[in-house]
Structures are given as structure tokens and as C-alpha cells.
């Protein structure tokens, strides 16, 4: 054995199994992770040079600090972490499994003597009879009870919570599962984005990393986009898009998506991320010829010259959704028949009578406007995400099992000595011993009652 211990492969194996390595890596990961929170990640080169200088920037690139969470050394650290985890589990699992495969049904003299939680009785009762009642008690308190007879002595054994021995393995497995999920997501998934103008559809999205187009394999149409504001405020309360997925011209899915409520189709998920004006609003304008009182309606776009009677024309130069506190307003000018550019003036939608006071040839009122908007969507395909959730669930479940439950075992030994029956009961828990000691004290009272069934027992 000693000879074997010293061989190189054994030392390598011990190194990868050691808990010291685990702790070292955990602390290393904690400390190195700080770098990426202090140095901005994946920024343009110019930003680093401005902030840290050329020489430092070169160093950062060499050490991969500008994208450190994907650097070879950080990934390497995570890899070593997983190897450590796997090796340690391989090494220790058989020991835990032994508690399941071959539980110690017969208490050894050592355990009977040295356990912290023990009780001893002597009674005149026959040991078989006492063992019967004792089995009932253990069954009730601990579950399945095994009785073994060895050399005329009766041994009882019961246990509960054996699964808690596996809590740590579940937790450790969960870490590997989460990593696997993340890797799968990185290899076979993508992050992308797309803007869809209301009423139009797209077949491709742009990858976030390379701006390269990705074919979806189906069509997504945005029928409508809306923003709802909080009352008397410009704070958006909600914004949503009505999306339709089409395949070969058939409408497959309709869904109204909003922030925190995405649409998933064939493994690709569309998240409401942003919105904006797609430009080129259409303004519905009522024009009154002041001399005659004749009114006309026009649909005009910004910058477009619209003909009015008698060789006049007008054009909208500008528009704002909120002019100071007065709401939507447009700026326009009128060209006279000789082609002269008139002075620009402002028309507020909320005050249609105002423009009459300007006393021009025509007065204008803005009836309404329709500005097409685009909806900005994040697009993600992540075939690993459910694996990550499964791993997360297992991690919580496993760590609760490992921390808050313990494997409790109880043994009893009954023997006949000098016409009397001697009973020894010992128990232990593999975790939280002080708590178990209290529980055992309570259990002892039940034990007393069982033993005292016929004759009052004397405590040994």
C-alpha cells in the first residue's frame, strides 16, 4: 500500500481529489472574477487606450482581461474545478454507496461501547419478547428494522435519512449539469436581435456577436406595437407587440408579447426589448381657406410639398410628440404661388383654433398623426436553458438535503447473561450531532417505557 501511495499517478489522482484544491479554486475564481467587474468587458480598443494607456491595453489583451470570462485561463480554472468535482465524487461515492448496499446490521463492540448516544438496561424479561416490542418501537421511529441473530445475541438495526448522504453528490452533479447546459447553449444556440416595423415581417435576425444574419426558417410578422404610459406621465408602463409566426404563408401562432412575457417558437424565443419610431409619420391635416371658409383634408408626410388651391403649397418641416407642455406639435410653412418660402409656424394638435389667429391665407389644424413604430426584439436560441434549470433545481434540492438532513442509524444488542437480559442501544447521525443528541434523549424516554413494560428496569 505505502509503495503504491507514492507512485506519480496516485499523487496526481490525490491532487485532483483533494478538497484543498477545491477550496483553492473556489477562492481563485472569486478573486479573479473581480478583474472583469473592474475592467470593462468587450469594449472598443479606443476606450481602453483612453483609460489605461497603450501599454496597459496591450497587456490586457495578452492576459485576455478584455474578455476574461471567456479567456483560456478562466475557462481552464472552471475546467479544473469540474475535474476536481468528478474525481472527488468517483473517489468517495463508493463509500457512501456502501451504506446502502451493506448496512452494518450488527453493531460492533466498538460502536456499542463508544457511541455518544447510548442507553443500557438489564431486565428479567426474555430477550425475544423484549426484542419484539423493541422492533415495534424502532419501526415506528426509524422505519424498517432488521433483526439478526449472531452467537445467541440478538441485534436490531434501523436507519433513516440515508438519502442525505447523497445530497453533496446531487449538488456536485448539479454543478456539472449547469455547466453542460451553458456549454450546449453556447455551442448550439445564439443571441440575436431584430427590429420589425409594424405591419411588416422578417425572416432573418442579426447575431449579437457578429452582426451576421441568421435565417429563422420561418417568418415573423408584427401586426401592431403599442406603448401604454402611466397616467399623466411619460413613463412607459408597458409595451407590447402582436406577433404572428408564419410558415409557408400559414399563420402558425399569434401572441402578444411584452417585457417579461416572450414568445417561443421552435426553440427560438422573441423578447420585447425596445421600440422606436420607424420615421415617416402620416399627418392628417385640415386646412381652411380663410377668405372663403372652405375646408380641405390632406394626408401629408414630413418634407413633402402638398398642393393647395391657387398655386399655394405647404410642407411640414418638423414634428414633436410633446412641445413643452402643449402636446404634439408640428412646424410647417406655406409657399406662395411665386414659389417664395413662407415663414415657418407651429400648429398644436390640442389647440386647433390657434392658427386662425395667425391670419394667413390658410389656417391649419392637426387632426391626428400616425407614426409607424418598430418593435425591437431580442432573439435567443438556447437549447441548454432547460438543462440549466434542471441543474439549478437539483442544486437547491441537493444542498438542502446535504445541509439539513442527516443519516441516522440505531443499533440494539440483546444478550442473556446470568439469567437476565442485557440490552444496549446506541445511535448516531452523520451530521448535526448536538441536535441528534437532544432527539435521542427524548427517544430514550420511549425506550424506558418499552423496557419497563413488565418489570421496572434498572439503568445500567
Amino acid at each position, binding site marked *: 500500500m505505502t509503495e503504491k501511495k507514492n507512485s506519480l499517478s496516485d499523487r496526481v489522482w490525490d491532487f485532483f481529489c483533494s478538497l484543498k484544491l477545491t*477550496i483553492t479554486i473556489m477562492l481563485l475564481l472569486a478573486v479573479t472574477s473581480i478583474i472583469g467587474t473592474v475592467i470593462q468587458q468587450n469594449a472598443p480598443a479606443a476606450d481602453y487606450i483612453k483609460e489605461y494607456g497603450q501599454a496597459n491595453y496591450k497587456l490586457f489583451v495578452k492576459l485576455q482581461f478584455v474578455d476574461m470570462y471567456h479567456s483560456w485561463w478562466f475557462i481552464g480554472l472552471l475546467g479544473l474545478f469540474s475535474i476536481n468535482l468528478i474525481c472527488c465524487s468517483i473517489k468517495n461515492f463508493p463509500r457512501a454507496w456502501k451504506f446502502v448496499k451493506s448496512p452494518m446490521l450488527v453493531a460492533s463492540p466498538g460502536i456499542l461501547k463508544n457511541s455518544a448516544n447510548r442507553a443500557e438496561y438489564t431486565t428479567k424479561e426474555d430477550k425475544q419478547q423484549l426484542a419484539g416490542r423493541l422492533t415495534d418501537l424502532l419501526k415506528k421511529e426509524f422505519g424498517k428494522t432488521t433483526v439478526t441473530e449472531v452467537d445467541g445475541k440478538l441485534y436490531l438495526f434501523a436507519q433513516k435519512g440515508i438519502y442525505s448522504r447523497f445530497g453533496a453528490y446531487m449538488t456536485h452533479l448539479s454543478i456539472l449539469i449547469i455547466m453542460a447546459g451553458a456549454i450546449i447553449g453556447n455551442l448550439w444556440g445564439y443571441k440575436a436581435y431584430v427590429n420589425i416595423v409594424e405591419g411588416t415581417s422578417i425572416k432573418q435576425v442579426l447575431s449579437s456577436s457578429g452582426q451576421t444574419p441568421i435565417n429563422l426558417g420561418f417568418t415573423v410578422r408584427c401586426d401592431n406595437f403599442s406603448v401604454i404610459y402611466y397616467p399623466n406621465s411619460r413613463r412607459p408602463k408597458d409595451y407590447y407587440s402582436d406577433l404572428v409566426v408564419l410558415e409557408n404563408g400559414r399563420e402558425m401562432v399569434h401572441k402578444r408579447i411584452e*417585457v417579461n412575457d416572450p414568445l417561443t417558437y421552435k426553440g427560438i424565443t422573441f423578447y420585447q426589448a425596445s421600440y422606436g419610431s420607424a420615421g415617416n409619420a402620416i399627418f392628417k391635416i385640415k386646412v381652411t381657406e380663410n377668405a372663403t371658409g372652405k375646408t380641405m383634408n390632406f394626408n401629408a408626410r414630413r418634407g413633402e410639398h402638398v398642393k393647395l388651391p391657387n398655386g399655394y403649397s405647404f410642407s411640414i418641416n418638423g414634428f414633436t410628440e410633446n412641445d413643452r407642455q402643449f402636446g404634439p406639435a408640428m412646424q410647417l410653412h406655406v409657399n406662395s404661388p411665386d414659389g417664395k418660402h413662407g415663414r415657418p409656424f407651429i400648429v398644436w394638435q390640442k389647440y386647433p383654433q390657434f392658427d386662425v389667429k395667425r391670419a394667413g391665407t390658410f389656417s391649419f389644424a392637426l387632426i391626428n398623426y400616425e407614426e409607424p413604430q418598430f418593435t425591437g426584439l431580442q432573439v435567443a436560441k438556447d437549447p441548454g436553458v432547460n438543462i440549466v434549470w434542471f441543474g439549478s433545481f437539483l442544486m*437547491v434540492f441537493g444542498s438542502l438535503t446535504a445541509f439539513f438532513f442527516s443519516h441516522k442509524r440505531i443499533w440494539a444488542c440483546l444478550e442473556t447473561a446470568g439469567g437476565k437480559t442485557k440490552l444496549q442501544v446506541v445511535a448516531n447521525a452523520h451530521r448535526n450531532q448536538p441536535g441528534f443528541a437532544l432527539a435521542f434523549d427524548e427517544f430514550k424516554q420511549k425506550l424506558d417505557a418499552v423496557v419497563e413494560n413488565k418489570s421496572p428496569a434498572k439503568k445500567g
Partner: protein
Amino acid sequence: MESGLLFNLVTVAYFAAMLLFFIYLATRNNTVSLLATLTAVSGFLLQTAALGLRWYESYQLLGSDGRAPLTNLYESVVFFSWSIVLIYLLVDLKYKQRTIGAFIMPFALFSQAGAQMWLNAGIDPLVPALQSNWLTYHVITCFLGYAAFALACGVSIMYLIKIGKEEKYQGDGPMGGLLGFLPPTRVLDDINYRAIMIGFPLLTLGIITGAAWANYAWGTYWSWDPKETWSLIVWFLYAAFLHARFTRGWVGRRAAWLSVIGFAATIFCYLGVNLVLSGLHSYGS
């Protein structure tokens, strides 16, 4: 708002409780310790009522857009204070070590008073990204976890104060003076471990619910942003603490230091990332 008034009363109660715990340390009078605990309990009940009232007020103010008071910095700091006292009172029930109050109430007082003094207590409507149940689960789990770490830090400080003197102590019989009055170092070490054992799964849940929320809102469960990364740093530190413990090598002084460092990292994750790192460059803008 009525709840603001109640929160001011809470600050007063926690301040009084802290003073009483200090007086208890000085006088060792059991009546004082009972009074201190009762004051802390009434402060806690008051704070619970104030949180409930603020919840109700949010509905009065915003109509159907009201929400649980767990959505901005002010509310989270107040909830942190509430969680600390909750965890402390539970530990008090189990361990009956009254002196711990003197080392944990300052944390609760500081966060409650700090929120009242420096943070904006307005009830504003939420931007769409914050309108998610995941946010509620995320805040509750994170802050209960942080509170457990605060308690671990408090008892670790007690441990570090006491152990230094205890090791130098030459006389026979129990140590006298104030230090002799603190709980046995063995008990402090045990509470430190147990508090972290409770805080760690809560932090794990906090990170997972945060990831779930990010995934629903933005389509990535993890993007290595400074906040996420710091929560992972804290997670690694406490994971290291727990594993160091399993080997039985790291009890006592080293465990206490690791717990103090862990809590410092927790506070940095909570406040420092927003205050310090966002000053370095404009994350989150």
C-alpha cells in the same frame, strides 16, 4: 405617507434596542436584556406593519399598479433590516444568547436609519422590466440570505474579539470581565457555521431566481455583468467556507475571518457595485 412615520418609529425602536443591549453588556442585568429583546421585538412588529402599510399605500397611490414593497433600493434596504432582525430573533429563540443582540442590532439599525436618511422613499411606478414575480422571489431569497450572513459576521466579530483575549488568558476558572460574559467561543463558532449554512442555499436560490428573471426579461440567464459576477464571488467565498469546514481544518479564527470577508463582499455586491463600479464606467445606463 403614514408608513414613513412608522418607519421613523422603527428607527427609534432599533436604536433603543441597541442601546439597551449595550447597557446589558455593561451591567449584565437580566431585566435590561429582557427589555432590549422586547424593544427589538416591538420594533420588528412595527416594521412588519410599516411594510404592510407601504404595500397598501402603493395600491392607493398607483391603483392596480401597486406592488409588494420590494422593488427599489430604499425598499430593499428596509427589507434587509427586517430580515436581519427576523434572523436574529430566531437565533435568540434557539440559542438564548442575549449578548449577540449588541452585535447584530447595529446592522439592523444602520440599514433602517440609512434608508430613512439617504434613500428616496417615493413610491414610483415600475418600469416594465421590473414587473415580474421573479423580482419578488429574487429579493426575498437574496435578502434573507444576506441577513443570515450579517448574523454570521456579527458573531464572527464577537468570536474574534473574544478568542484573542481568551488565548492570552492565564488565570484559572472562567474568564471574568466583559469578554467572559460573551457566549463561549465554541457556541459563537457554531452559530457562525449554522447561519452560513442557512444563508448559502438562500443565496443560491437568490442567484437562480435572478437568472430566471433575466431570462424571462432579456433572454439571457447569465451575462457576467458586475452585479451577477459579484453575487457569484460571494457564492464562491461561502462555498469555500463550507467546504473548508467539512475538512474540519477551518474552524475558529480562520472561519470567523472568512465569514467577515464574505459579508464585506456581500455588502459590496449589494451596494458597492452600484456606487463604486458604476462610477468607473457607466454600467446599467
